[in-house]
């Protein structure tokens, strides 16, 4: 078993930024999985009634929670955009080196812009005065 041939490891390849985009897809995927657990917790708080929901929203308003929410937003948006890139690749299109580099750059720009948009919309949605 120990004598089986190994494929060349990452270290033998020249670094290109598309490599970091690839690992970032997995990292943001795992982060979005954690966000899913938070989403289930938030829904349960909402289903438990006004007091539980207010407590959950208070919990989400701490600086650390806000930082996490921005991180989750970027993770989701990046995984969403890069996921579409992967689905296009699955059809056999866009796999040429120049095309993959261009689509990678497009994914980065789109995710940063969309993260800013969602954070801005989220802040607006949180500051709407609540009429009793």
């Amino acid at each position, binding site marked *: 078993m120990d004598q089986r041939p190994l494929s060349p490891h990452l270290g033998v390849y020249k670094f290109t930024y598309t490599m970091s985009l690839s690992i970032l897809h997995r990292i943001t*995927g795992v982060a979005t999985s954690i966000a*899913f657990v938070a*989403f289930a917790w938030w*829904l349960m708080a909402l*289903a438990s009634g006004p007091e539980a*929901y207010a407590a959950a929203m208070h919990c989400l308003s701490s600086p650390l929670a806000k930082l996490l929410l921005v991180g989750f937003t970027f993770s989701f948006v990046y995984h969403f955009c890069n996921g579409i890139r992967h689905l296009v690749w699955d059809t056999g299109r866009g796999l040429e080196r120049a095309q993959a580099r261009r689509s990678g750059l497009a994914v980065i720009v789109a995710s940063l812009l969309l993260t800013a948009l969602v954070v801005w919309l989220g802040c607006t949605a949180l500051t709407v005065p609540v009429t009793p």
Partner: protein
Amino acid sequence: MSLRTPLGKVLGRGSAGEGTSHWWVQRVTAIALIPLTLWFAVSILGLPLNSYEAVSGWLGEPWVAVFTILLAITLAWHSWLGVQVVIEDYVHGKAAKTFLLLFSTFVHFAGAVAAVFAAMILAVS
């Protein structure tokens, strides 16, 4: 001479004995998640999030409940498959790998059931 049919030889190939179904289900759930997550994100960002009445009222609508449940199940399924691959690729100790795979499975099922249950409560209350 083998008595197995050519179809029987290729069905369920791969070390897990499930052929390409893991890969395929990950793509199917990915495609379903594009409209589901877009719809949910756009809708939720248009609500006054600090208002319990506004948020619970929106989630209480029947079709919203249906699509929120679809979102929760599809998201949990896609996430479960993805985290499984990450654990299998990067965790090498047998005990740690088994523990993390079990942990991920339990958390994903618990998250999915909690989200579906909450959406149902909101729809009928």
